[in-house]
């Protein structure tokens, strides 16, 4: 079973080439996004740890 090659439509928009400046900007944006993502993960971990420490053994000691 061979698939017929898909032809590109001739009126497809031409992708603009990324210049060195755009690539620099994209790289900086990617790194910023990674740092922001890591900060968010850190925030979640921080809140979790603070909650656990503040609760301490009180969860086990609560009246049932």
């Amino acid at each position, binding site marked *: 079973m061979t698939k017929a090659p898909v032809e590109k439509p001739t009126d497809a928009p031409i992708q603009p080439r990324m210049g060195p400046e755009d690539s620099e900007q994209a790289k900086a944006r990617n790194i*910023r996004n990674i740092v922001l993502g890591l900060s968010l993960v850190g925030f979640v971990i921080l809140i979790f740890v603070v909650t656990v420490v*503040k609760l301490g053994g009180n969860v086990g000691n609560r009246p049932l």
Partner: protein
Amino acid sequence: MTDLSAPLSVSEISAEPSETVGQEQTARWQDFLALMKPRVMSLVVFTALTGLVCAGGKINPLIGAVAVFCIAVGAGASGALNMWYDADIDAQMRRTRGRPVPAGRVQPADALTLGVVMSLFSVMLMGMATNWLAAGLLAFTILFYALIYTMWLKRSTPQNIVIGGLAGALPPVIGWAAVSGTTPLNAWLLCAIIFMWTPPHFWALSLYTSEDYAKAGVPMMPVAKGAKSTRLQILVYSLLLVPVCLAPVLTGLGGPAYLAVSGLGGAVFLLLAVRLFLSRAGDAADPRIDAGLYDVRAAAKDARNLFAFSILYLFLMFAALLAEHMFGIEPFAALSFLQGFNR
């Protein structure tokens, strides 16, 4: 918190900033870090940690670390808000025009957003992790620095850094409150030391960077009242500072190491302040000499010496307190006759 605009490292001073001012450029994550004034943050963290340890109460080490982290984030938020609001004058000064906002690398709205989000985050987390007194003091410090110092005092009075210095002086009180839930007189004594230290420290710097402030229209003391008046005020504040620095020995907060550091350091501080008073530091520069921003003229060396030593003096005093309280060194019972300062 106290920007107190310590001189920035060479890397923070843009070499060719005039070409970049106002142009939009790509922000790197380091630019957002620079908005938080990491150097100022490090001083805030150190003094807050000292307050936290001196409080002497029991606190979970992790909660203690979170408290210091919140104070650091609050200091960073203050820095970001300061850079957002001051972008116009920062752009006019050689020392600051390479900062992310005036250089066009970070948009003003982004700096504002970062400052507001970090302020809310630090205060709320401090309240949740420790207590709401510490959180309230942190909120007050951020608001005082951003609203009172940055937006009002800095541009309107030569007393700007005297009153605004309170923001930089509060971190040890916040650290103390985070542990004990109270702010006894000893905590306020730490605050008083930084508060009294700020004017001679900062005016010594401004004596040899006043041209920059004059250009931006910021009424720093040497610009508004002249170098002679500034040198006199530095001497007066130095004379007041040394007894305040010795006071912790009398209240039982400081022990032998602290007494040695604050006494000997205070003597050197006074000597340098007298030498500065007798010098011509900050007097009108020879217009034929095209000096660089930190090219200190011969007469200004006395100003630079006092500025450099003031940083060492404050650091050593707080380090001595920190060490004494961490290693349990007892204060002089005979000297500490002012009791009740820990309540």
